[in-house]
């Protein structure tokens, strides 16, 4: 990435930029009002939480049920490939100038409904694929043994399959949260809500400092979110934690994420 030789111009450019960015964060005016960091941050968080919750409510029961009966594998696995090929930006735009419209939606801001719908669509593939793969990867012998012990469908699901599939199910939700956070940034391209607006506003004003400051906020919180989700996953899953010490390759089973 970085060149071996940084010419003096570029060196001072970085220093100027850093000073500008520090000044930008110290200016209370950049934190207040509709375009301020606080408002955009709240919009962004609200969008991420709402969209992921809706996607979990729809996707998890569907994937767990499909995995339990062992059907629809082709759908569950291919949905991620389809999700990868469709640009988020296009979906957002199609929704916002189409039937859904770009009207304000309460605390979600302009084009709130279009953004929410697009985000739910993008959160579904990782949730469904991971939960389905997790359910199918549960050792068949274990399931058969549980059946042999007289366990019925629901009991088998609750006491054997879901606990064993738990690491991958949570991995899917984690991926969805981080991906939704990243995707919500793109809402700014359709003049939608969220932190991306600080970046696009900076572009319109040709203000590099503002662009970089906005990008730093988004990137920093994305990394924090990822880290806290990894921690949460570890916290929620004592069985997997014990198992991971003996089976280090577990994480490799997670399907590849969709580019942010």
């Amino acid at each position, binding site marked *: 990435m970085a060149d071996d030789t940084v010419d003096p111009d570029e060196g001072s*450019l970085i220093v100027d930029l850093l000073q500008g960015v520090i000044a930008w964060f110290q200016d209370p005016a950049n934190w207040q009002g509709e375009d301020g960091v606080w408002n955009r941050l709240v919009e962004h968080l609200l969008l991420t939480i709402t969209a992921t919750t809706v996607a979990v409510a729809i996707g998890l029961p569907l994937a767990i049920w499909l995995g339990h009966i062992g059907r629809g594998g082709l759908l569950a696995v291919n949905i991620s490939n389809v999700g990868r*090929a*469709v640009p988020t930006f*296009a979906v957002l735009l199609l929704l916002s100038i189409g039937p859904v419209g770009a009207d304000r939606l309460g605390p979600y801001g302009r084009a709130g409904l279009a953004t929410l719908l697009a985000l739910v669509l993008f959160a579904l593939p990782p949730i469904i694929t991971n939960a389905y793969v997790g359910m199918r990867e549960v050792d068949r012998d274990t399931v058969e043994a549980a059946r042999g012990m007289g366990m019925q469908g629901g009991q088998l699901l609750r006491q054997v399959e879901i606990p064993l599939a738990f690491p991958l199910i949570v991995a899917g939700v984690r991926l969805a949260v981080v991906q939704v956070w990243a995707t919500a940034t793109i809402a700014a391209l359709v003049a939608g809500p969220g932190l991306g607006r600080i970046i696009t506003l900076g572009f319109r004003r040709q203000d590099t400092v503002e662009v*970089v400051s906005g990008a730093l906020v988004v990137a920093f919180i994305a990394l924090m979110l*990822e880290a806290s989700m990894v921690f949460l996953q570890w916290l929620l899953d004592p069985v997997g934690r014990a198992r991971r010490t003996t089976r280090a390759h577990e994480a490799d089973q997670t399907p590849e994420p*969709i580019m942010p």
Partner: protein
Amino acid sequence: MAFLPPVSSVTSVEPNCMVRNEWICGEYLRSRSADLTEALVQHIWITVVSVLIGLVIAFPLALLARRYRKLEWFVVGTTTALYTIPSLALFSLLLPFTGLEPSTVIVGLVLYSLTILVRNILEGLKAVPEEVRESALGMGYGRARLLFGVELPLALPSVMAGLRVATVSTVALTTVGSIIDYGGLGNLLYQAVNNQFRPQVLTASVLCVLLAVAFDLLLVGAQWLMTPWTRTRAA
């Protein structure tokens, strides 16, 4: 009056589908074919250049990570962390250094493709059975010949799987480059944010998905040609 399409279409007497702002519009395809081709060509070259550079960088990184176990954690960790940074933010962070040039978009896309490519090349190489490696060494194969003659061909399915995912994702992500006017078909989408020009949005979106599918099929075909042994074994 938000639905006013660009001026050039208003010249015809009968209001055509462009004036009526219909989603599906043959007139749009005819009159704007030059714009569409230009955007498509830009989209293709940005994607191809990004993935190729990604491949060229990912390969030595994967080799290094395989050679030194400590580096593996670092390489995989860094590229994964990069992946959590939203594209709009990454392009914007690169902007002061690379300017309003295609290189800003390309550097960003290369960084994203690294995550997938490094991981898949590494996995493919690791999956080569130790016996195979040992018999090649026993037959007097040198390091380079072992790598290019034995290990890489065997790792090819994993490498190609990674390449497919990286390419398809890059096609979709290139659209975000429209923020600095180098987003290929994304530029057409970005214009439509203001003029609400429906045929343009639908056409550009569909072309984008078709492009991703075309690249994917091309890579599947290439893999089929490059791995004749997998076919004879199956037959």
